[in-house]
């Protein structure tokens, strides 16, 4: 009864192949692989309504990147933009275009210890939808290079 637009059949087939299970050292006692667990999701205790306290703690200590594929509707870019803006961090660099391969990769705004970035034309799974821009983005963040 899976709703449309997602198809993980290839992953299920691959990971449930006995030869693959053996190659990646999965014990026989462990059940078959499923992409998402209904049991875990159903019984899961969501203890936080917002991550604001965590970000307030983190942005004083380590660098962060919040990025969004801009055509995702599960966790849309506007919500995360509102969230980051609500932290009230000092702006280090105003919103501007970033590029990859001579094309607009998206937009980036940099706050103190937190970069907010969109990936143009990517959905929820950014590295899958826009692999080249995604790699450039994460490389730039990790190695402190310009986006």
């Amino acid at each position: 009864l899976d709703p449309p637009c997602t198809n993980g059949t290839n992953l299920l087939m691959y990971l449930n192949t006995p030869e693959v299970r053996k190659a990646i050292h999965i014990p026989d006692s462990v059940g078959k692989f499923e992409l998402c667990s209904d049991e875990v999701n159903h019984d899961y205790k969501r203890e936080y309504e917002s991550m604001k306290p965590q970000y307030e703690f983190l942005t004083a200590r380590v660098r962060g990147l919040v990025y969004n594929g801009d055509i995702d509707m599960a966790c849309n870019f506007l919500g995360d933009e509102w969230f980051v803006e609500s932290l009230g961090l000092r702006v280090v660099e105003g919103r501007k275009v970033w590029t990859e391969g001579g094309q607009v990769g998206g937009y980036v705004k940099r706050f103190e210890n937190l970069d907010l970035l969109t990936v143009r034309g990517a959905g929820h799974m950014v590295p899958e939808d826009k692999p080249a821009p995604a790699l450039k983005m994460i490389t730039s963040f990790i190695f402190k290079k310009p986006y």
Partner: protein
Amino acid sequence: APDSDEIIDLPGLNHNISFRHYSGYLSGAEGKHLHYWFVESSRSPADDPVVLWMNGGPGCSSMEGLLAELGPYPVNPDGKTLKENIYAWNKMANVLFLEAPACVGYSYDTNGDCATGDDEVSFSNYLALKDFFTNKFPEYRKNEFFITGESYAGVYVPTLTVRVLEGQQDFNINLQGYAIGNGLSSYKLNDDSIIFFGYFHGLFGDDRSCLLFLQVAVASDIIYNQGLNMYNLYDDCPASPSAGNFSRVEADLSNIFKEHKSHPEMMLKARKRINNLT
């Protein structure tokens, strides 16, 4: 690195790879055994950073990250062979994919106890990290370390990062930062903003008040239940042959409008719909 965890011969891998890879289990909280898959950097593993990647749900496997998103060998549609990803993140980093919490993917609980929550998950993931850097791959403990993820990892990543920072005196990891893609940062802001997102993408108009209960239900129905690809508005919506009892869409839908009266109905509609594409 643990020899017993090294992947020697991966089925379906028909091209040469220039890195080593490992798969096995990390110990989380008592009885929690978290499956990991670690791909070393194809550049300079000793010098490159270590990046932890987690997918969300809650309840979805990080094998999607490895085998469909940013890993070096995504699975082909045939479900048997692997292809090369020239944009894999292990071009510049050692990437650790962690299946969490227990009961997700190949992770398991010794007693079959799958019930958990945000705090327990971040604690268990923290213990798994300690196991990784202490027992499995101590040679990487000096490397720069980043915590990353997607979707409900918008909760997993910050809560784990806080734990790592708070535990630095007890167990020092060379943590440098964190990155979150399309993360769930705030239920309220995510719900409020999708109405504007839908409006600005022309999915519905402003002829009625969006503040009314029914109109929010109508808007959410248009966004999530009428055959649009919720993960990528402009992408195709491929038919999905039954891929399991519980889908990624259901997991992600469980995060949206969860306090709204129409939430159970929205979930029910999603479950009932079978290849009813538009």
